[in-house]
């Protein structure tokens, strides 16, 4: 570890914190439906969208209607993307004449992008046409991100409102978020990326003749436009196989800094929207505080491990270097690679600028554990916020048990129904992760895909299902997941990890909105201060630890201790 490395990490945190209030204020205007700066320019388009699709922008929906709208919207998005991937060979904008995707790969990919997972069983530059990338993947990148934020809005309304059935209008939320937030931000961000060197063209791949007179075929494409929403929408599915490690996706230290910021800004600002909506900004800051405590701890461990823990270079004489550089890029080095890995897994982004599979055992364990916790450390856009709120409900419930009072949060009584639903939502993904991992470990179809032997191989499988069920999308990418077995089981894990959380979460929002507001009393646990932050951090860690410690012992910890003993696999 170097002082300069820590300076980069602290600078990143500073920029993130500076963005929270201004972006929170803007998002809050979208949340309440107030006028924003861009409305004169884009308001006409917004109204056209409503008129053509028959939406009454003033009407609102109950939680069931909101859920139905979102589910149907995502189902149709899945169907359209699946169709596109199955027919890309016959469609335009396919200069490399890439074939149609197989049924299982198209299922996996369509599921992956509609659930904001962006797991990639394919290699971008070798499998997908430009049309599939832009009209298929880019669109779902926008819509799955807008869906996530809209769902967070619905939950915040559940807390902020009283004695009502109404949670807002899903179509209005998605439209406004796309038109006034994601699209303009991406337009600007994409231009910045091109300036830094990210290509944006429709040319066929370029044949170059290198200095040593070898042939090099250079993959091209409309990369920048997809890169921008890939980061800002915490999607993470790269245009090219090497993702944000590829010099065409992430050419410079500056583009890397912008990408890391873009993963977290919206998720962090949503905590401020929450604070504003419930008229106590510190309610939001407390949630953000708990997230940041977990985040900094993860960065510290990963950065230390990548600098100093045993790695493949350990024990060789005559080598000098800053640490574990296998699978890392020179321009980012150890610090910015470790930081990126923690950010992308704390959020449900899944873009990578270094290969997690080649991280040290402990350095790779933190990204894995981040995902297993449910990506609630800032988290995916919207999804991280509502994920953390589920933990908050459980934390409040446990605090209530300790003193024997009915727990309350933001003036709402937290009762049996809410706690049951929160528990259901929090347990769904772990169940999918552990069950599917266990199945893959005993089936030949699961074991044939492994790139590494020993405990590291087990970690590859565990990471894959955690990434799918957590809707993350990053990978211990040595695992060859493009098989019928992995494509289908991972696809199902993504489905469970997204919708088995969304539906109970919306039910909680509905039930909270219907409740009365009760006044703060002497027996109310303050949820805007340090005590609650500590409680929330403890609940997240205890829950994650109890659920996943055995699996982490079998994988990363076993590998770490084996390496200390000099064992290789």
């Amino acid at each position, binding site marked *: 570890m170097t002082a300069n490395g820590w300076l*980069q990490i602290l*600078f990143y945190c500073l920029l993130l914190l500076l963005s929270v209030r201004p972006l929170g204020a803007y998002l809050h205007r979208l949340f309440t439906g107030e006028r924003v700066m861009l409305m004169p320019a884009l308001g006409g388009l917004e109204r056209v969208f409503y008129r053509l699709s028959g939406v009454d922008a003033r009407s609102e929906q109950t939680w069931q209607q909101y859920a139905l709208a979102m589910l149907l919207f995502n189902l149709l998005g899945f169907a359209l993307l699946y169709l596109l991937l199955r027919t890309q060979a016959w469609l335009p904008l396919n200069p490399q004449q890439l074939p149609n995707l197989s049924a299982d790969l198209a299922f996996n990919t369509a599921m992956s992008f509609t659930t904001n997972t962006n797991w990639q069983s394919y290699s971008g*530059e070798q499998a997908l046409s430009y049309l599939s990338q832009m*009209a298929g993947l880019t669109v779902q990148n926008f819509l799955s991100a807008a869906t996530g934020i809209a769902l967070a809005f619905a939950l915040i309304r559940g807390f902020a409102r009283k004695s009502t059935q109404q949670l807002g209008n899903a179509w209005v939320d998605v439209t406004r978020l796309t038109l006034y937030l994601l699209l303009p931000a991406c337009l600007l961000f994409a231009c910045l990326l091109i300036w830094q*060197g990210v290509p944006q063209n429709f040319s066929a791949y370029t044949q170059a003749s290198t200095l040593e007179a070898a042939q090099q075929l250079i993959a091209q494409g409309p990369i920048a436009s997809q890169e921008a929403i890939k980061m800002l929408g915490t999607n993470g599915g790269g245009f090219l196989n090497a993702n944000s490690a590829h010099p065409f996706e992430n050419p410079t230290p500056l583009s890397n800094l912008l990408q890391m910021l873009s993963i977290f800004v919206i998720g962090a600002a949503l905590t401020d929207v929450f604070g504003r909506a419930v008229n106590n900004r510190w309610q939001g800051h407390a949630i953000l505080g708990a997230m940041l405590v977990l985040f900094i701890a993860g960065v510290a461990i990963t950065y230390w491990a990548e600098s100093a823990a045993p790695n493949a270079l350990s024990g060789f004489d005559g080598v000098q270097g800053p640490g574990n550089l296998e699978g890392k890029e020179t321009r980012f080095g150890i610090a910015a690679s470790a930081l990126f890995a923690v950010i992308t897994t704390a959020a449900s982004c899944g873009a*990578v600028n270094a*290969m997690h599979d*080649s991280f040290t055992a402990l350095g790779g364990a933190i990204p894995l554990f981040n995902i297993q916790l449910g990506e609630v450390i800032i988290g995916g856009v919207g999804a991280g916020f509502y994920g953390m709120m589920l933990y908050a409900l459980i934390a409040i419930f446990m605090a209530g048990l300790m003193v024997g009072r009915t727990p309350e949060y933001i003036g709402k009584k937290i009762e049996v129904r809410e706690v049951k639903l929160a528990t259901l939502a929090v347990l769904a993904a772990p169940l999918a992760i552990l069950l599917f991992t266990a199945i893959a470990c005993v089936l030949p179809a699961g074991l044939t895909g492994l790139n590494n032997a020993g405990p590291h191989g087990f970690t590859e499988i565990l990471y894959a299902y955690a990434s799918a069920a957590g809707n993350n999308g990053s990978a211990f990418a040595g695992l060859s997941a493009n098989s019928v077995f992995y494509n289908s089981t991972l696809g199902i894990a993504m489905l469970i990890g997204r919708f088995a959380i969304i539906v109970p979460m919306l039910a909680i929002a509905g039930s909270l909105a219907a409740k009365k507001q009760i006044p703060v009393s002497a027996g109310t646990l303050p949820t805007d201060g340090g005590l609650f932050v500590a409680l929330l951090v403890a609940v997240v860690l205890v829950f994650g630890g109890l659920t996943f410690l055995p699996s982490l012992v079998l994988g990363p910890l076993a590998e770490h201790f084996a390496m200390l003993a000099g064992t290789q696999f």
Partner: protein
Amino acid sequence: MNTYLRPALLMLLLFTLLCGAAYPLAVTGLGQLLFAHQAQGSLIERQGRIIGSELLGQNFSAAKYFHGRPSAAGTEGYDASASGASNLGPSSAKLRQSIEARLATLKAENPGQLVPAELLTASASGLDPDISPQAAQFQIPRVASARGLDAQRLQQLIDQHTQGRWLGFIGEPRVNVLQLNLALDAL
């Protein structure tokens, strides 16, 4: 049901047009207008032929050139249509064997020096265009004797081609191997 199906279907189609066609086309237009060179992939042309991209590494094995990092892209390395990494874990025996072999080669080619770690390890993209200034310096004796050049001249060239950290502290100092070798050929 129609109250849900119609908005779901039409919103999807409208957003596909907006985000899947209008948006990428607008970005393409802006990119080609403002930063045409980058938008086309930062290609380098010499005598009417494209010899590569400023941003992508290439295979270098001749003694007269500076060498980049080991690459796992494609079967030969540095395949710019098949980016990727080794994805071998820290406890992998296979990875240790590769490192051992690379170490032996590098020590034989550049005797008597400590070997920089990045020359022993494959990058994440397999297309890493850069090495650290130390890794370039490490190769000076070999390149100098292959070209009959003065070591000091090569050090100057490396210094000229070293890009520092952004704002003095973001990222790592680096030397673009292809550009360094082009400058070397132009001497």
